[in-house]
């Protein structure tokens, strides 16, 4: 019988995607649907003096115009995570209004909302809204936002801090260890701001049905149930059972579509006001200005070593921008998704991280592929490579010296870090050894020395990462400030004919769930993949769910489905035993049938399914039907890890960096579909290379965005990227039934420091010790000059 786990099964969903036949929110057209446009602030910080909508209201085809002075101006969207000050003060949480009323706090903040019969008329009318602003000085840098006299984002507090938080060992203890260290390596840099750039911009349709008194919100989101919960319980206060949230195909998210955005709530509110459906689709300019950004940390770090190169202490202070308001998960990103990874893959005995998270006059910052872990990995992997250079050691050797020893998490315990988490299983030296072997590290060093003699600038950069994903145990995240649980729901409905519908609360926005989930369900039930349908993205169909982010879908969502499959098989065995006139314990289930052990008497999955729904000859006390739902709340995060190695050549004339080779050896636990995992690694690596070399959101001193289009914001293109050489080691996750970790973010976490380490290595003989990302030709050339 054909099995599917571990095989490169082609993605089912590609049939529609490759034909342009996907069903995205903007593809939906409803009867009587109106269209809308926003009037957005051209200033980052301003007083709103007046808003005159009279001309817009009279314009052709206009249905309604709303401003912050209407009822919607008193509504705000909530933050989903609370991180308090280390001194006990509660996190400062400003109202995040659907429309600004008195004050503008970031470029592109919505001031008025225009609904019209067509999109063209909505756009034209939006231009007729006359807003008078009084521009105010803005602050966009998180460090400058904490300087005395900095312009304040919210007047109600004495400074811009949303919170000031720390994790790890006692600061004084860490400082003392650094003071006594044989060698201390220091770094100051910016982990710069990125725009998420999903290819499908955000798009929403809100449809209030007057007769049924029900709302439907079609939305390009990564988690429909969470949007419904936040929309109903916090933003609008409308009954959850009367709201359906639907997201069919979603064209990428990278985190930016996790959050509950103001536009979702405003459209839902306004749809009832006008009694008609309303559509809004962001254009690319609005996406740059209003999608939650990623990163934006200013970092100062010290790592101390003993004379043998063992790390003795690590102390870091960071300023991490929150933006103008707190987006859904924003406070968690530079704290519990970041500081908790400061152990890295090393035995560092003393760690302390302090994070000051200020409001800034920018769009909110939130999780972006990797969310806090790329920032932690960048720091650890850059500083250890810098230290190796300073101590005249090989960067691989210094890593081997400091690795946590291999542990499997079953017969050997997990590894307790200094920063709250306990790693599940790992073999860090294994991935580095394999990575070095894939590259031919020793031979490369010879080639590099030879190339240098000829004036060629070749460099190699190593990064050995760990990340915490598969979020997560609800009790743990609850104790860390999450305001929601982070379990997942898996519902297996066996139809009378033995065909299976699986409902998952995870939500695919490009990951291939419809294929991967069907693969393991097929194997566990012993039925063909074609007999299985995966349903997601509709709150009326799926009982509940927490969506897809944090590389959690398979580890958490897949495990929930496994629990339901176990229930199906357990009940099926009772029915089978009855039909076969045998005892349950005498049955075994394999290849889609129950067989009486040692005999040829068997009954197929399909016959049992039919019996369950046509229960004429049926076991006593057993309910009809074969339909189970389960909630799975994991006992721990999962901890994928790996080694990424980049080889670069720097053009000595122009400073342009070319990546000659990129090697990735990742360990994501057991692999369901190696082709999809490779694809996830490839995509992540490209995003990581994008951050290292190309992408950066730049605001000028007035808070205007310098890089607000693809003319200035450099996305990686195919010819920027080398062939990515991948391999894997396999260290199963010990605490979930499939033994899987997560692969969605790993590529973006490991790759960035590998590239920058390689560039610095290429230039090290010229005295270059660090270069600010993105490592553009200009920055490289200037570093070579100084």
């Amino acid at each position: 019988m054909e099995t599917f786990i571990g095989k490169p099964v082609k993605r089912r969903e590609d049939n529609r995607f490759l034909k342009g036949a996907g069903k995205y929110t903007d593809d939906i057209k409803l009867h009587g649907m109106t269209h809308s446009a926003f009037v957005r602030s051209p200033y980052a910080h301003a007083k709103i003096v007046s808003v005159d909508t009279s001309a817009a209201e009279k314009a052709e085809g206009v249905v309604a115009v709303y401003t912050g002075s209407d009822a919607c101006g008193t509504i705000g969207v909530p933050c989903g995570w609370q991180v308090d000050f280390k001194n006990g003060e509660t996190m400062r949480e400003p109202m995040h209004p659907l429309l600004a009323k008195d004050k503008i706090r970031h470029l592109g903040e919505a001031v008025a909302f225009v609904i019209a019969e067509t999109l063209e008329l909505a756009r034209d009318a939006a231009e007729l809204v006359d807003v008078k602003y009084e521009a105010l000085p803005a602050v966009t840098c998180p460090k400058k936002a904490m300087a005395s006299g900095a312009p304040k984002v919210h007047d109600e507090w004495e400074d811009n801090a949303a919170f000031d938080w720390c994790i790890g060992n006692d600061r004084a203890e860490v400082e003392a260890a650094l003071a006594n260290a044989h060698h201390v390596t220091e770094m100051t840099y910016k982990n710069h701001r990125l725009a998420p750039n999903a290819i499908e911009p955000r798009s929403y349709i809100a449809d209030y049905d007057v007769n049924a008194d029900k709302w439907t919100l079609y939305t390009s989101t990564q988690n429909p149930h969470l949007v419904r919960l936040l929309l109903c319980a916090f933003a609008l206060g409308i009954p959850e059972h009367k709201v359906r949230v639907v997201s069919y195909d979603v064209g990428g998210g990278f985190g930016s579509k996790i959050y509950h955005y103001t536009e979702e709530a405003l459209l839902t509110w306004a749809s009832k006001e006008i009694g008609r459906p309303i559509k809004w689709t962001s254009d690319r300019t609005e996406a740059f200005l209003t999608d939650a950004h990623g990163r934006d940390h200013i970092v100062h770090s010290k790592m101390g070593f003993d004379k043998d190169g063992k790390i003795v202490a690590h102390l870091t202070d960071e300023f991490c921008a929150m933006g103008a308001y707190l987006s859904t998960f924003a406070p968690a990103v530079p704290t519990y998704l970041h500081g908790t990874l400061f152990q890295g893959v090393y035995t560092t005995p003393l760690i302390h991280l302090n994070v000051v998270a200020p409001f800034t006059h920018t769009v909110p910052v939130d999780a972006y592929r990797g969310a806090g872990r790329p920032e932690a990995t960048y720091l650890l992997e850059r500083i250890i490579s810098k230290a190796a250079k300073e101590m005249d050691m090989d960067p691989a050797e210094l890593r081997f010296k400091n690795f946590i020893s291999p542990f499997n998490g079953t017969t050997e315990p997990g590894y307790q870090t200094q920063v709250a988490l306990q790693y599940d299983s790992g073999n860090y030296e294994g991935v580095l050894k394999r990575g070095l072997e894939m590259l031919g590290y020793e031979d490369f060093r010879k080639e590099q020395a030879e190339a240098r003699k000829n004036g060629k600038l070749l460099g190699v950069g190593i990064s050995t990462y760990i990340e915490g994903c598969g979020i997560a145990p609800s009790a743990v995240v609850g104790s860390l400030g999450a305001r929601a649980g982070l379990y997942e729901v898996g519902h297996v409905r066996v139809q009378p004919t033995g065909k299976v519908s699986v409902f998952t609360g995870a939500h695919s926005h490009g990951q291939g769930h419809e294929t991967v989930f069907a693969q393991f369900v097929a194997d566990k039930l012993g039925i063909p993949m074609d007999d299985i349908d995966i349903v997601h993205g509709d709150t009326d169909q799926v009982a509940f769910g927490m969506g897809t982010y944090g590389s959690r879908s398979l580890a958490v969502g897949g495990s929930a489905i496994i629990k339901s499959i176990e229930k199906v098989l357990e009940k099926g065995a009772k029915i089978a035993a009855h039909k076969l006139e045998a005892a349950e314990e005498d049955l075994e289930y394999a290849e889609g049938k129950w067989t009486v052990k040692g005999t040829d008497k068997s009954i197929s999955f399909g016959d049992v399914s039919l019996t369950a729904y046509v229960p004429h000859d049926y076991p006593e006390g057993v309910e009809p039907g074969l339909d189970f739902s389960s909630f799975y709340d994991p006992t721990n995060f999962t901890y994928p890890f790996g080694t990424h190695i980049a080889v670069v050549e720097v053009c000595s004339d122009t400073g342009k960096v070319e990546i000659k080779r990129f090697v990735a050896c990742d360990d994501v636990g057991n692999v369901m579909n190696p082709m999809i995992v490779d694809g996830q690694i490839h995509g992540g690596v490209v995003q990581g290379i994008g951050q290292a070399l190309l992408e950066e959101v730049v605001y000028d001193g007035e808070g205007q965005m310098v890089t607000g289009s693809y003319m200035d914001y450099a996305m990686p293109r195919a010819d920027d990227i080398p062939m990515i050489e991948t391999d894997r080691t396999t260290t199963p996750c010990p605490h979930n039934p499939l033994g899987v970790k997560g692969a969605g973010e790993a590529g973006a976490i490991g790759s960035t420091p590998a590239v920058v380490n390689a560039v610095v290595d290429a230039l090290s003989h010229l005295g270059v010790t660090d270069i600010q990302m993105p490592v553009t030709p200009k920055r490289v050339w200037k570093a070579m000059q100084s």
Partner: protein
Amino acid sequence: MIPAKFEYIKASSVSEAIGLLEKHGDDAKILSGGHSLIPAMKLRLSRPEVLIDINGISGMNSITEDGNEILIGANCTHADIVNSDLINSELNILASTAKHIGDIQVRNRGTIGGSLAHADPAADYPAVVLACDAKIEVEGKSGKRTIPATEFFLGIFTTALAEDEIITAIRFPKVANGNYQKFFQSASRFAVVGVACVKDGNSVKVGVTGVAGTPYRATAVEDAYSGSSDAASHAVDGLEDELMSDHFADEEYRAHLAKVMVKKALEA
């Protein structure tokens, strides 16, 4: 990404287009390939009331040999130029330049006449028309005239075209030994620095785009050249106050790149 309202008129002859330009004045824009104009209109940065589409005018998209010259209709797309056997053999510098403009979609729509009239300071063609001493053939209400490339570019998005004039063709001499070197901006793939070089024995003509607001002939390089690429050190002589600067390349780096790319062009 929806433009403001505009009226669309498809001109069927050059004289009709000129008449329309005369009639509508500042309110009108000529639509050729539209690859700069349409995005600007979608962002509502440009809001012409009338678009005069010249794509249907016959005779404006041919590439012909005229003695020692090649005449390229203004409506020829970059792809037409890339794919022209005549240009590939007699004016290779232009074909190899066009090959690196934008992407396939841009090359299939964007035109040489549109690009020159738009005069984007980072466009590729200006360097080539300068180095080749091409002539821009234009027509307006007072008739036809020919503008030497060296007199055509007046500043950022500014040319010697009068308000009622359109480019009808570009007349290039045949060029045996020319090359174009481009260092592109990683986001837009426009030229940060683009250098066209036409060599004839020990004399050289060098056109530079992307460096100053106005594309220029690097006459200091040409004067200093006597077969050695050391002359490249003069790439920005006299232009110190006119260097462009942006977050990708400031004046200092741009000036350096100009020298590097001129050297590369001289050595090619």
